[in-house]
């Protein structure tokens, strides 16, 4: 039988039940669907209690978690829970809020940033990212660009960061900002409202941005050099991406390019009016600045300068990014005529002739495109067809038309480009297929075509065009330009081709994970390994290949040792809010006029100005809602943010399930309890039933530390204690205000201090480890930690936080847990008391920090009187009353093996406190005296309760006298009886964990037995007693003592030490505060 309990829901009732059960000794899983305890309802329920749950050693808190399944029966239940990640490490976050400041996303309908805490007190005090999945745009990008991220940064006017974010993923923001076929826009959810965001143009905007205070982006950080050298064949997008990725990973790279220009298809396929050469030059130059060596006019191959095997000899690995430059033939009669010119060849010649006017290329263009050509037909529906058609227009061919065998919907070309072509006067004839080139005397004069209709879908999913019989017709043309596809030209591989391997389609064959060809050390990607063909796809494949090559170069075994990437996030599909559905039309891209266009190769699109870009970026719906801009990750000094966290499931063996509020689950039967969210009494009642079901074992924990002897009547001189001072910088949260290094330097001069050092984050495990190591190495007896924790008590108060609890847990100063550092530890809260309250005055903050730390050092130099006391409450429970409440309470306690005394007679006298109550009941001859550790009163009415008020002199303090419980007569009797039973069990359990170290201690020889303490203690925790020797002095009931110190403050002879400090410690601290300068 599992003695663990799952509580679903952390409202007031959930917290109550969890604490009662855990105190009584059961293990509790507190499951909360929202990221914070108490839910997101901003409950006013005491934050202290929520933190108490976080701190409790027997409570495991599961935030962002749902109960998905419950199986098993009886007390053997298996609960399956699913936790959505916070994306913030609860062990590292310091809640400094730097992340929130840089987060560009405001969550629609919530008003807070994507990374956030609750307003007011959050428990746990750990940030959470509202990240429901990956934005559709980001998910669609083959290049892995955080699309929503840079859009959000642009909307926030943070252009430089936006560009940096793009550069982190790809080396070509300017190129992609012009020519990308933008799958992001295709997936954009804004289209559900009006039109997709103009994302590509936003990318172009930041890539071109020169607005102040915009500065060109610096290269991202490099890894140290590995000494490896890689040869890359081809300077297209895949080759240059591999170069970019490998250079950043510390490898040397040389790129070999056969052509005289760099950029592959980007430079010789895409026309200049779409992609000005200056943009390519700029982005390639950036690569070269990063150390990429590019050698043009260097052909690899048997007939070239070097063979692939030569490269393998000289380099540690080879990457083949040779693209697909060999055109497909039409395979129709007349194709061999000189007036038939492949589109890809024509484009290359036009582009090279433009870029190299003094070379042989202008002459070669004249041969391909003689001056007499007036009419041209371009065959195909891809970007090459549209590009070559528009180039022909610009080369002076008046009549250019595009023939495509399918319809507009099937066209692979970018629709905007098709529209631009039509606007420039290029007709596109759909459902038209050429069947014969008509030539006269070695001259093309016409092209015979046939009309098509669409039939069943083919393997590409598009409907197959079928010729319509008898629809043949002839188009009169001087030039036929086929542009129906390309494939790689792999002749350069020569004999190595066989080793590498080729697919049936004629592409290079590579491993789908490692991108390695059949020839070890030779990798390939880009168009050379097949479709899809686009710049961004080539980049995406290049990135994956580079990752594998890096692993290969580091000597890892492929594919086994290739680092596992985080599994993909599901795509976020949140419901759009009504207010998000208001139309905001897409910003049009300004262009030059059609007349200006055909006159030359000037760039057609002019780019967004800032106002347009801001307006466009603000259309983003924040689908994530987190944009994955990673701005938070960059500023997070504790390195707490991790976007790679993924959903996790766990199976818990539990004996009972408590559903708080509306929670529902199937299964579990009679072991599933329900309680209303705010019914704390009901929660305790449920806890009592669960305890009865599972059985509670009250175990006494071993005393954590030996009792320290009190200083006897004299004050010791400062003894030779070796003290270490540690000052937490809290990243920069403290260090930005308090001059930590100066404080540390000064601390080393104080008496007793033998070691002082700064810490980055005291509340992380590393902080405690650093301190523990210093204690070992320097033989420290005492440690002063100046961070954000205030005290070493095993309690939380209104000012406490998750970080403070975490810090104390790591240091081992809490009741259970953490490493035990063998030194006395003093904590000083300089984050709040210095860095926050004097945030505007660094000098004052530093001076105050120095004084507070000096005071803690002085405190350590005085003997400490605190000791942990474990005084288990044993003995019977007196249950007084006749009604159902008494019956239920007594029954439930008895089932736990607790001795119960039942009484219902009138009380005459009552004395004592928790653990040793003495009550006289009944009248005259019938009176008797009962001793009990705990008293439960279950009066039937207020009148019934009155005599108890009198004998205990309660004065409204009934709830404050430890070990005295009252079942309120106003409550449902059975419920209140059960609730009190749970509270009694919780109290008995707590007394076995040990009280805090500040319980009062009496030095008998100094006690005058004047009874002042006894008359003042609200908790009945101190009383003057006669000793065995006959003397009288005050005796403390440690189980009942709260350590408030009232007795110590009033004791005339100073016989009592209570609370956190001895008088000597307070005096020493005051002296230090007043003299430290």
């Amino acid at each position, binding site marked *: 039988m599992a003695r663990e309990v799952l509580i679903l829901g952390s409202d007031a009732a959930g917290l109550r039940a969890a604490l009662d059960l855990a105190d009584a000794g059961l293990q509790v899983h507190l499951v909360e669907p929202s990221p914070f305890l108490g839910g997101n309802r901003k409950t006013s329920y005491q934050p202290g209690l929520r933190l108490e749950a976080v701190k409790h050693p027997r409570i495991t808190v599961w935030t962002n978690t749902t109960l998905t399944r419950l199986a098993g029966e009886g007390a053997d239940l298996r609960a399956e829970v699913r936790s959505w990640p916070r994306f913030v490490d609860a062990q590292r976050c310091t809640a400094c809020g730097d992340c929130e400041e840089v987060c560009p996303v405001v969550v629609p309908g919530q008003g807070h940033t994507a990374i956030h805490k609750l307003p007011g007190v959050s428990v746990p005090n750990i940030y959470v990212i509202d990240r429901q999945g990956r934005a559709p745009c980001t998910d669609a990008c083959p290049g892995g660009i955080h699309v929503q991220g840079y859009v959000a940064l642009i909307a926030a006017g943070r252009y430089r960061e936006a560009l940096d974010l793009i550069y982190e993923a790809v080396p070509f923001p300017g190129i992609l900002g012009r020519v990308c076929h933008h799958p992001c826009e295709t997936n954009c959810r804004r289209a559900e409202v009006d039109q997709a965001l103009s994302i590509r143009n936003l990318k172009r905007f930041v890539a071109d941005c020169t607005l102040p205070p915009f500065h060109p982006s610096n290269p991202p950080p490099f890894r140290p050099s590995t000494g490896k050298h890689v040869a890359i064949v081809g300077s297209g997008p895949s080759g240059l991406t591999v170069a970019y990725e490998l250079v950043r990973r510390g490898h040397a790279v040389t790129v070999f390019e056969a052509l005289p220009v760099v950029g592959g298809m980007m430079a010789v396929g895409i026309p200049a009016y779409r992609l000005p050469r200056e943009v390519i030059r700029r982005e390639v130059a950036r690569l070269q600045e990063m150390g990429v060596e590019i050698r043009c006019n260097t052909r690899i191959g048997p007939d070239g300068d070097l063979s692939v095997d030569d490269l393998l000899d000289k380099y540690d690995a080879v990457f083949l990014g040779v693209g697909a430059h060999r055109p497909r033939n039409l395979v129709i009669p007349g194709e061999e005529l000189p007036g038939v010119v492949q589109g890809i060849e024509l484009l290359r010649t036009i582009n090279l002739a433009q870029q190299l006017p003094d070379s042989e290329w202008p002459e070669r263009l004249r041969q391909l495109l003689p001056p007499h050509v007036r009419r041209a037909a371009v065959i195909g529906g891809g970007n090459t067809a549209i590009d070559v058609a528009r180039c022909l227009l610009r080369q002076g061919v008046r009549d250019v038309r595009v023939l495509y065998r399918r319809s507009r919907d099937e066209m692979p070309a970018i629709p905007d480009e098709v529209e631009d072509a039509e606007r420039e006067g290029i007709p596109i004839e759909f459902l038209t297929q050429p069947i014969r080139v008509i030539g006269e005397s070695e001259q093309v004069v016409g092209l015979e075509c046939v009309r098509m209709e669409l039939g069943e879908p083919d393997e590409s999913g598009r409907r197959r065009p079928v010729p319509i019989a008898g629809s043949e017709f002839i188009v009169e043309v001087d030039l036929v330009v086929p542009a129906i596809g390309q494939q790689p030209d792999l002749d350069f591989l020569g004999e190595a081709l066989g080793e590498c391997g080729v697919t049936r389609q004629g592409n290079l064959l590579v491993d789908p994970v490692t991108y390695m060809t059949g020839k070890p050390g030779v990798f390939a990607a880009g168009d050379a390994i097949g479709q899809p063909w686009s710049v961004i796809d080539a980049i995406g494949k290049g990135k994956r290949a580079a990752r594998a090559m890096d692993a290969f170069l580091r000597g890892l075994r492929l594919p086994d040792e290739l680092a596992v990437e985080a599994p993909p996030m599901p795509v976020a599909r949140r419901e759009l809010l009504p207010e998000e559905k208001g139309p905001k039309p897409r910003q049009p891209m300004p262009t030059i006029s059609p007349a200006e266009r055909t006159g030359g190769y000037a760039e057609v699109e002019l780019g967004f100005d800032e106002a347009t870009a801001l307006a466009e970026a603000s259309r983003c719906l924040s689908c994530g809602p987190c944009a994955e801009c990673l701005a938070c990750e960059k500023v997070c000094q504790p390195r707490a943010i991790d976007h790679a966290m993924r959903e996790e499931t766990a199976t818990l063996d539990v004996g009972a399930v408590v559903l708080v509020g509306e929670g529902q689950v199937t299964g579990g039967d009679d072991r599933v309890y329900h309680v209303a969210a705010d019914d704390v009494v009901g929660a305790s009642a449920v806890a009592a039933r669960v305890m009865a079901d599972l059985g509670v074992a009250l175990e006494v924990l071993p005393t954590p530390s030996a009792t320290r002897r009190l200083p006897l*009547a*004299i*004050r010791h001189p400062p003894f030779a204690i070796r003290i270490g001072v540690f000052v937490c910088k809290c990243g920069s949260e403290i260090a930005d205000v308090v001059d930590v290094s100066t404080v540390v330097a000064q601390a080393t001069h104080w008496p007793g201090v033998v070691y002082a050092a700064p810490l980055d984050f005291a509340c992380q495990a590393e902080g405690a480890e650093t301190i523990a190591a210093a204690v070992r190495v320097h033989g420290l007896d005492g440690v002063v930690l100046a961070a954000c924790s205030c005290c070493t008590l095993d309690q939380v108060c209104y000012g406490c936080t998750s970080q403070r609890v975490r810090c104390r847990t790591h240091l081992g100063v809490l009741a259970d847990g953490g490493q035990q550092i063998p030194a006395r530890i003093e904590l000083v809260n300089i984050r709040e008391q210095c860095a926050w309250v004097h945030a505007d005055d660094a000098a004052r903050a530093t001076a105050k920090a120095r004084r507070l730390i000096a005071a803690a050092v002085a405190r350590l130099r005085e003997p400490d009187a605190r000791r942990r006391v474990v005084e288990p409450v044993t003995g019977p429970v007196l249950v007084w009353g006749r009604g159902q409440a008494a019956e239920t309470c007594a029954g439930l306690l008895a089932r736990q093996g607790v001795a119960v005394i039942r009484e219902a007679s009138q009380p005459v006298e009552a004395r004592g406190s928790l653990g040793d109550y003495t009550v006289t009941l009944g009248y005259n001859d019938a009176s008797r005296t009962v001793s009990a550790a705990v008293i439960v009163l279950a009066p039937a009415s207020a009148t019934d309760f009155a005599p108890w008020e009198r004998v205990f002199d309660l004065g409204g303090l009934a709830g404050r006298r430890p070990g005295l419980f009252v079942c309120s007569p106003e409550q449902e009797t059975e419920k209140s009886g059960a609730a009190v039973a749970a509270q009694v069990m919780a109290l008995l359990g707590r007394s076995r964990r040990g009280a805090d170290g500040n319980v009062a201690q009496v030095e008998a020889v100094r006690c*005058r*037995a004047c009874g002042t303490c006894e008359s003042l203690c609200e908790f009945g925790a101190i009383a003057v007693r006669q000793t065995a020797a006959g003397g009288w002095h005050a005796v403390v009931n440690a189980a009942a003592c709260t350590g408030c110190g009232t007795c110590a403050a009033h004791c005339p002879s100073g016989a009592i030490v209570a609370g956190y400090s001895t008088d000597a410690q307070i005096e020493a601290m005051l002296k230090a505060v007043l003299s430290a300068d």
Partner: protein
Amino acid sequence: MPDPIKQTITRHRAYYCLECGKCTATCPVARQDSGFSPRRIVEEVVAGRAHAVLESPLAWACLTCRRCSEICPSDVHYSEFTRELRILAREIGHQGACTHGDTIHTWMRMMADPALKQNRLDWLMGDLQVSPTSDTVYWVGCLPYYDVLFRRQGFQGVDIARAAVRVLNALDIVPAVLADERCCGHDLLWQGDVNTFRHLAELNLELLRSTGARRIVTSCPECAYTLKVDYPAFVGNTGMEVLHIAELLSASDLLSAIRHLLSATRHPPSATHHSPSATYQDPCRLGRYMHVYDAPRQLLRALGIEIVEMAHAGKTSTCCGTSGWTNCGATSKAIQVERLREARATGAEMLVTACAKCQIHFLCAMDDPRLGAEIEMPVRDLITLVANALE
């Protein structure tokens, strides 16, 4: 450099100790706390084990009541010997356990600040007459301060001061009362804080000398002894006569004047009238230190009060149980309870003392939830009784 321990031993005749143990036998502390023995402490120090004493709480347990010196056949000055041991113990960082959260010692140390400005005359009111040019200074001591702490026990210190001035006025003495009087330093000196004592003494001497008076009268036995004996020994002579007010009033001419005044009051003591009874607590400083035993008794008799002596009275009188606001505790309480039982056993109606501290300590001891009824009795101040009778 001479060994300070040896000097102490020599100065206070510890070498002459015969180890007879009479001191311990008569010591009120040893009677309650078997761990404390003056004989053994002398023995330890003489045997060269002074450090064991200096580092032990035993150094602070002595009440300095002089019961032991009174009986010592070798005239060992045990109280002064203890005082010097405490001075040495303080030098190595030890200190007695101060009562009342160190409040009173803090006041004393604050008064050692030369820049301190006080106004200690607010309690003077109504028909009380003082004169800055008087040849008699009435030295108030710490009476007004104690009121703040011990009001709950029913102690009213300023009433003692007012009574003193009223009695002086009735005898045609218009005293000077000093606004800038400071603590005489008695408690600090006896707790070993000789440095602060010196500061206080120097400031007080300067103040007293500036008055031009020739006589100091005080209602505090400790102030009287300190100004008279310890100031000349440690700092300097006041050059003035120092008297406890009981000494002054018992001078034959003044005593006659008092009798005369009393006969003129509405309720003259007479044989037919019920004559109240009292028992008298000899304050250590007034009795064994200054040998003033008869004067207070004469005054009481002059008031028509019948004196019933306790089992221990005069030279064998028992101390009130605490000295110098230090080391109060179970032992002190036991001494006080025993003394109060002794007082109750006399059947007297009241316990009279000439020292405010004796009064406070007895009042405090009676504040006991269990013993209260057994040990309760009215505690009266001598001068207040005189003043009331003269009304």
